[in-house]
């Protein structure tokens, strides 16, 4: 049997692919590559299935990843809101308690100055305050949106005008300025438009 000795292998050696064992090995490799191709196509099919199960509602009643994510976010948010409202009401209650205690303190300091307060009276006042705190859970917090009393300014001076007195006041005019104001007014209008409301 004549061998084809001119087919080189990777190591540049000849006579490596023409023997019966070589032929047998090549046949085995061909069969294995078919198996690999079959497995590859299966992987592709499985990948598609996984993607579908992640994006759509599953028929077996379980949740998708997005649904689980949304549910977690919503649960955390509602828990945060609940805690927030809980502490807000606690703050309101504490404000109310503080108010009652402050009033009690004012009453007590007034009595102390007169030196006529007894321990019994003190206990009674404190227990009244505590009772008020426990009973009066109604919130009385200052609300910023409530109407506020208008600040009134009264002129303390007598309404003396120049008509009532004899005036000899000499005021000189200074007309040394020569520049017309129109240019400046136009510039000002260009930058500001109108006069901004003053923060006073």
């Amino acid at each position, binding site marked *: 049997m004549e061998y084809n000795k001119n087919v080189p292998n990777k190591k540049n050696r000849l006579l490596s692919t023409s023997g019966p064992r070589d032929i047998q090995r090549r046949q085995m490799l061909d069969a294995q590559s078919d198996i690999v191709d079959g497995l590859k196509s299966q992987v592709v099919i499985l990948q598609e299935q996984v993607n579908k199960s992640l994006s759509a509602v599953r028929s077996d009643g379980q949740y998708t990843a997005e649904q689980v994510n949304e549910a977690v976010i919503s649960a955390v948010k509602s828990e945060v809101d609940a805690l927030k409202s809980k502490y807000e009401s606690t703050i309101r209650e504490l404000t109310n308690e503080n108010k009652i205690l402050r009033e009690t303190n004012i009453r007590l300091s007034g009595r102390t100055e007169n030196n006529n307060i007894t321990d019994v009276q003190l206990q009674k006042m404190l227990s009244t305050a505590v009772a008020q705190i426990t009973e009066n859970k109604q919130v009385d917090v200052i609300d910023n949106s409530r109407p506020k009393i208008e600040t009134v300014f009264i002129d303390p001076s007598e309404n003396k005008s120049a008509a009532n007195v004899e005036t000899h006041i000499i005021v000189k005019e200074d007309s040394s300025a020569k520049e017309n104001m129109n240019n400046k007014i136009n510039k000002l209008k260009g930058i500001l438009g109108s006069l*901004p409301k003053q923060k006073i």
Partner: protein
Amino acid sequence: MDALWFKGGTQMGKRIGIDIGTNMIVAAYADENETPIFKMQRDAFYRIIPKTEVNRNSIRISLDKRGASYIVDTDGSFIIVGEDALEIAIERNDKAQRPMQRGVISPKEKASLPMLKLIIENLIGIGSEDDKCIYSVPGKPIDASFDISYHTEMMGLYLKQMGYNAQPINEAFAIALSELLDDGLTGVCVSYGAGMTNVVVVHEGDPLVEFSVTRAGDFIDFSVGNALDVSPSLVQMEKEAGTDLFNPTTKIMEAVSVYYTSVINYTLQNIAYELKQREKTLPIFRNPVPIVVSGGLTLAEGFVKKVEESLLNIELPFKVSDVRRAAEPMKAVANGCLLAASI
């Protein structure tokens, strides 16, 4: 009192700017050519109560001869107004009264308030409903605990009683309107007055920082007076006669120069502090910005140089292009108010 001083009739009284300062009241209006005209009066008065009828006549003759501005009150006493009030008070070893302290009027000075009204009324005349009057008010003080709301409201009330549609404007911002137009209304304006020093940092027309400090001209007068045991009024008169901060000729002037430096440093340090407090909210100043100084104190020779020297030790969140004095330091606020009344 009438509006006769309005040249050309009623049209001239339509827009008025008024700088109501502790030491000086300056009014501005525009003539028929839209050129600003200024009138100013020292914000001080001194009352002389005649003992007899003869005394009354002699006082009147003396005041007329002197050319002094005065008012004969309903009780027959003479109230000398303005510059003459200061001079006559010093002549009599007394001190003139001032309706305002530290930049504002106070209910405690109620006896002085009618005088303030008279001085203002004499300067701007009686207005009509359409006449617009922009008046200056100080910024909120950062080193004293008094409220500027009372002053603002009461001045508004007085001007309204005089017939004007009155609106307040921050004193330092008025300087910005007058002096920073060519800089796109960006820069720092400091008004060194008698009762207060007012500051604004403005960026493209937006006042970012507005405040005042109570260290100003009066502080210098009282400090020098205390240090050298002389009358603050005398210090004021000497100071206003001419001050050269780098070449003081008398002991009083030496002390004045020292306290000038102190006030300048204090103001600039507070500007740096206030800006530092707000550094996170400040806009970016792309270009170096000017610092404009104005007010009576800046008339002193060498004032701008003193500010420049002080700035070497101050860290600001922007570069300073130049320090300059307002074109007319005594009129810049009134001019800014007039411009504000014109837009």
